[in-house]
């Protein structure tokens, strides 16, 4: 027999919920919102890829840009290809 466990709303859970709500509206993924943008991810399309780099030339983390992990992986591969061809910098002083 399976024992049923009731989830008790304790102090810790309430605090967690409050913390999440305090961040406001959650960031949206640009590629899930309009799927046509996915075809733009290409190592030749440097101007588009530049939106996902920091000023220093690092890849912007998905935590900040809100990109879903599926597209973040695609982006990272194409950015690295462009870097190898000297289209994008590895780092910028």
């Amino acid at each position: 027999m399976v024992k049923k466990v009731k989830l008790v709303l304790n102090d810790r859970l309430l605090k967690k919920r409050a913390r999440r709500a305090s961040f406001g509206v959650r960031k949206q993924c640009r590629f899930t919102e309009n799927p046509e943008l996915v075809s733009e991810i290409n190592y030749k399309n440097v101007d588009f890829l530049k939106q996902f780099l920091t000023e220093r030339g690092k890849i912007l983390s998905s935590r900040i840009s809100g990109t879903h992990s599926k597209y973040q992986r695609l982006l990272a591969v194409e950015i690295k290809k462009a870097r190898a061809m000297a289209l994008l910098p590895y780092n910028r002083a």
Partner: protein
Amino acid sequence: MQTQRYESLILTVPEITNDEATDLERTIEKKLQSVKGSLVAYDRWGKFLLAYQVKKNEYGIYFLARFDVPFEHKADVIKELKQLFDLKYNALVMRHVMCNIPSDAPLSYKRPQSLDEMPKDVDQFLKENKMGGFNQRRRSDRPEEVVTEKIDEQDVVGDAEKEESSEEGQ
């Protein structure tokens, strides 16, 4: 006969001559024709300012080649082409990348703007886009200066009248 389409971006030294560029294209084409493949497109992107120095060069010229290769000869053709870039054209080709693309995809693509396409003359660029530069106010054909001239004339007239009236008084 089933074929696989490939795409290769080649970065060459900035001093490459037209003869060397056509020679590079012809050798790729010959290599493909020997296995009944075909060169679909060969584009010259032009001169670029590189993101970092490659072989002590600040600038470089990009070429994009797209070609079809029969399935049986896929592996050896790619290997031979890579060897060609690395060994025979070692002095010309600085970097190259090869990747396969779907053969039914359209051939159009987006690429960065090269230095040849960029407007060199600042004044001409501003004229074409109808923009004023930093020296906007110094130009003689600005309407602001015409207004100031008018005010000046009125002042001069006013002064002259005053002088006349003062003379009469004396």
